[in-house]
């Protein structure tokens, strides 16, 4: 358990202090868009702009790990940049670092407890009532009505792997931040910021109660999905509406391929192939490989799925993609005892092995 410290700074003060004292090149966080309705993950370099920062704003227009990947993949910044990340974004970033799609050099990672987000088309900066409810739910450690199903079933809502972690559940968002500094980099930053352990704070019991509520929800969700997916009929029904737009993979923080395997020439067939298959079955649904895409994608990235929910948000035909991937991913992850996003140094399961394992799968 990390030591929690009352920073005596509200969020704006905190960001200002980061700028001032840490000589940051920039901060990346959810920021109000000039048009005023929406917020987006934005890189800011000017301290004057930070009043527009709204790191907690409960929407995820893009998984920020994808943004950080874009930002650092070619080369990380030469000066420190603070990035605010939700726990699932942080987990995704950790996974991306493993596959060299992101670098954390010169990033100061600020994580915070996540009470979940709303589907992004359902929330605006002006939705005061909704946001008020959300704050209340945060303070109480309860799921807020209307947040995405995967969020309400997310049990890993406390950041893992941050340099600075903001304790958030069970607290008031406008009050000074309660921080912890899990990494060396974080501790260094704390020193520079002049934060010491003199202002220790207790962990909020709301964290546990939320964990419990979420645990229950997760179980239910798993059961629901397992039932829906039983047998080939289930598999077909669940994905029946899929229009093969692949939006799920394009917003997925883990799907990092430049040219998706399932959009590559591999899956372009010569005409005769379509007609032969049509003759075998009497009819052939086009585009083909629709279900294969989902299963195949799962096999490619399911072990790293952090259940961030982006896929489901982006699905134009309301397939519960994220819930499916969370459920199936969890099973696959359990097979190797792998927890995605937990540890940057842990190798990906398919890149390692032990000599005696999984013997039940062979004969």
């Amino acid at each position, binding site marked *: 358990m990390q030591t929690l410290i009352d920073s005596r700074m509200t969020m704006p003060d905190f960001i200002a202090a980061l700028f001032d004292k840490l000589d940051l090149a920039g901060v990346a966080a959810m920021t109000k868009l000039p048009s005023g309705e929406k917020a987006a993950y934005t890189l800011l370099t000017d301290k004057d702009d930070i009043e527009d920062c709204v790191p907690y704003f409960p929407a995820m227009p893009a998984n920020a790990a994808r943004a950080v990947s874009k930002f650092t993949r070619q080369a990380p910044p*030469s000066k420190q940049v603070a990035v605010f990340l939700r726990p699932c974004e942080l987990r995704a970033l950790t996974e991306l670092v493993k596959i060299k799609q992101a670098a954390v050099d010169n990033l100061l990672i600020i994580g915070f407890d996540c009470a979940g987000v709303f589907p992004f088309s359902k929330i605006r900066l002006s939705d005061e009532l909704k946001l008020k409810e959300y704050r209340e739910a945060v303070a109480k450690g309860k799921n807020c009505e209307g947040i995405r199903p995967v969020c309400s079933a997310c049990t890993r809502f406390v950041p893992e792997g941050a340099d600075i972690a903001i304790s958030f559940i069970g607290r008031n968002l406008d009050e000074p931040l309660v921080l912890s500094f899990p990494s060396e980099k974080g501790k260094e930053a704390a020193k520079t910021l002049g934060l010491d352990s003199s202002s220790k704070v207790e962990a909020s019991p709301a964290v546990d109660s939320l964990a419990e509520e979420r645990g229950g929800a997760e179980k239910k969700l798993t059961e629901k999905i397992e039932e829906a997916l039983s047998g080939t009929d289930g598999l077909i029904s669940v994905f029946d509406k899929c229009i093969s737009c692949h939006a799920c993979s394009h917003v997925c923080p883990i799907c990092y391929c430049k040219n998706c395997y399932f959009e590559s020439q591999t899956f372009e067939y010569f005409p005769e192939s379509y007609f032969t298959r049509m003759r075998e079955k009497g009819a052939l649904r086009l585009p083909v490989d629709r279900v294969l895409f989902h299963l195949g994608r799962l096999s490619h990235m399911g072990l790293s799925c952090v259940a961030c929910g982006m896929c489901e948000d982006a699905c134009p035909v309301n397939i519960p993609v994220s819930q499916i991937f969370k459920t199936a991913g969890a099973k696959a992850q359990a097979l190797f005892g792998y927890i995605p996003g937990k540890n940057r140094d842990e190798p990906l399961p398919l890149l390692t092995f032990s000599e005696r394992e999984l013997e039940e799968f062979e004969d």
Partner: protein
Amino acid sequence: MPKASTVVIYGTNLSGYRIAYALSKLGYKTIMLNRGAYVDEVRNQVLTQLPFDLCWACAYAPQRLFVGLGAMQILYNSELLELTGTAGNFKAKVKKRDPFVNNYICAECEKCIDACPVEVEKNGKKQKAVYVVPKMFWENIFLIDEENCTKCGKCETACPTGALKMNPPVEEIEIEAGAIILAPEFDEPGEAELAPFGWGRIPNVVKSSDIARAALATNFTEDSFRRPSDGKLPQSVAIIVTPHFNEKGIEYENYNASAQAVYRANKIKEMHPGIDVFLFCRDYKCYGKGHCRMYERAKDNGVHIIRTEKLALSVADGEKNRISFSTCSTKELTDKKTVEMTILITGQRPPTAMKRLSKICGIPAESHGFCDIVPFTCAKTEVNGVFAVGEFTSPKGNPETIWEGYGPLREILSWLGEKNVAKPQPPVLRDVSHEEAKTGVFICSCFGAFSDKMDLESLVNRVKMFPHVSHAEIINGCCTPSSIQETAAKIKNSGVNRVVLAVCTPTQKLMKFRKTVMIAGLNPLLSEFLRLREDVIQVHTDPARMEDKAAAMIYAAASKLKTARALPTLMDNIGSSVLVIGGGPAGLEAARYLGEAGYDVHVAEKTDHVGGMADILSKDLEGHEIKKYMAQLLEDIEKNEHITIHTDTTVTDVSGYAGNFHVRFETKDGETVEVDPAIVIIATGALEAKTDQYGYGKDERVMTQLEFEQKLAEGKITGGHVAMIQCVGSRNPKKPYCSRICCSDALKNALTLRKQGIDVTICYRDMNTYGFKDDYFQAALKDGVSFLRFDENHYPKLEASDDALKIKINDISDGKDKEVVSDYLVLATGMDPNRENNEVFSNLFNLRIDDDGFFDVESCACPYEDASKRIMKPFELSSNGVFVVGTAHSPRSFMESVMMARQAAGKAMVILSSGKMAPPNAMYVSEVDTSKCTGCGLCVDVCPYNAREIDPVRKVAVVHPFLCDSCGACVVACPSSAAFLRDQREDQLIRTIDGLLAV
């Protein structure tokens, strides 16, 4: 005695340049004697004898890159003094004086100008005694004004590179040469010739070449048409085709005089429809490809085309010109027009150099004073080993001149010894693919000239802080032999693997910069050349902001280089055989040319024998013995073991691409022959046009000129009266081209008839006798051939009865209705394209067909006439490796077809000799990222060079690199950036833009 290998080229006309270029490609050294102090001081054709207004700088200049690469040397202020020895072992005594400033050492820092104490007024501007000639295309030329120079020597001291020598000595040297090419520039008509047209004495009379020159600087906008007297736009313009009016010395129309006049008229009309344009000519000689269409357009544009026999100019009032003319030869000058400006289309006069050269080289002039050429040869004079090309041998336009440079190659080679120029071996380059990008920025001080204008130290310090830059330093220069070595050493020592050279113009010094980088062991694709001088030093003054701009440019270049990749220059092996399709004179001539040069040639002929139309012809207008020539040609072909003739064949399939074709053809017996030619020459010819007019086909007395000629040859025409009607069924909107040969044929047969005392009447629209052919028109007039001229809208009418053919005609010479009673009516039906044939080959070889049904010149490797810019490009295969020659290309006379075949064969020989070929822009060609390519073909559609096609199996685009000229059209056409240029990948360009905005 072994033969010498060097070739001396006297003069710098375009043909000479082309020969020099081709010989250097073939491995021979050429020495060009330039009579001027700098290249183009003596104007060659490039500026004025264009078929159209075009800026040719980019197409013309690359030939100069060969200067200084060892293969081609230019001597300045030079003159040929004496020629001794014989072909293969000439000794040429030459006088020369080096230029004051050696352009290859000069860094153009202008310190000499700063140092010069003399200042004089020249054309209202102050000028030092050492000065820069206004930029000639790519070069700035430094000259000393010998009249005002005090020889104080300050400039020579100030010159940091030692390029300036104040008193270069006049030297006499002796050159051992295998062959001599006479290629002096053309002589423009001067005051004497043009005085009758008022030039030099009447205000606002200008030469078209003046307009062309002015147009080059103003890009053919309204500016080129200001009248000289007050700079105002004239409201009426007369254009006069001067060679038509028999003024001594300029009476022979060069290739494009009529066309130029009409072109100019159209241009004015289209820019200012309000201006009245009067075009005065005797005939409209529109025998070039597309020229008749220009004429039709002129009529649509409302140009007043006045055909007149005589005219005179005088001052009307103030600054207006009065033109008096008569449309009838007998009438006095009765009609008058007043115009505000007069443009003279001038043509060329006999070369003044002829007399001297005639004496020195022992070559005779022909009757007009041009150099005489042995018939049926390319550029061969009567002295072995001495060749004459371009406008030295007759009045000529650019396309003819340029192509002439390829014609005599084989004959020239026969007089030369071993190759004497080896390709320079490129230095060994370092493999830096595994290294992290380290960029060095080298900023030129231009021997102190740049550092006078801005603080380079400060710039270097700033640049050092850039994220992509690991090294920055100032260099002295990068253009003189020593500074190239110094800079290369600096690059090498700094240990960088990307180089930004902030120097001056790569357009001019690209080779030097590239060389520097290569000496430093780096692939030039890892370097960027910035123009500090052109973009900063010379055009801005505020030092701080100059630094900003320079920094931004460097930042952008450095970011661009970060992802640069070194790639080897692409090469493709090319085959060594040629396929000639069509066994007519043109095809056979091409085959003989290449066969005798040792290349395997296959000739595919559709019919059962070779020879084509030539069977019928015995002599041409000039009296050249066609029969004899053909017999020799067939004999040579027969005994040449490199030439294989396939008769009765049909080409059925073509695959591959230029350099590596694969062609299949079938013989009549169903046998299949497959050949792999590198180059294909199409010489499928044209057809004699048939007609149903004037009772042709029904009345035996009515025949075509060709039929008549046969009858005449067979001695079947013994008396009576012969009438001829020209332009039957052609030069009208339906068939808007001139068949080029009919007028000559008519004259030829008429003269023969006259010799037998037979009366001849020729009814004609325009006498299309170009060049020296006009002599025969004059001769025919003298011999009593009767000429009646009709209007294009009123063709003669025929009333045929059993005893006579009555031809009724309105003679526009005197406006009277006349009647000719004749025994024979000969129709000039002209040529028709062989449409069926052309269709087949256009499909097989991806060639376009032009509006008239002949092969389009844009799509084949033999652009003649209107494909103007590409004629200039020396790049051998900037199109698809298929040469269309002879009448398949456009109507040509026998001799012209044969010459064209030789010229194409000469060019083909240059290509074949290399065995390997690099793309014209060897390093930067476009490529395909096949994983992204969807085979949509947009890039194929936009490629101007046929360099791309879709692989039918893989459904992706493929590039034939040596057809690619690296323009980038494909890159932009491709929405997914699957197409890219090697040195300008998409991410590099985006980085460049980001970089430009970053400072």
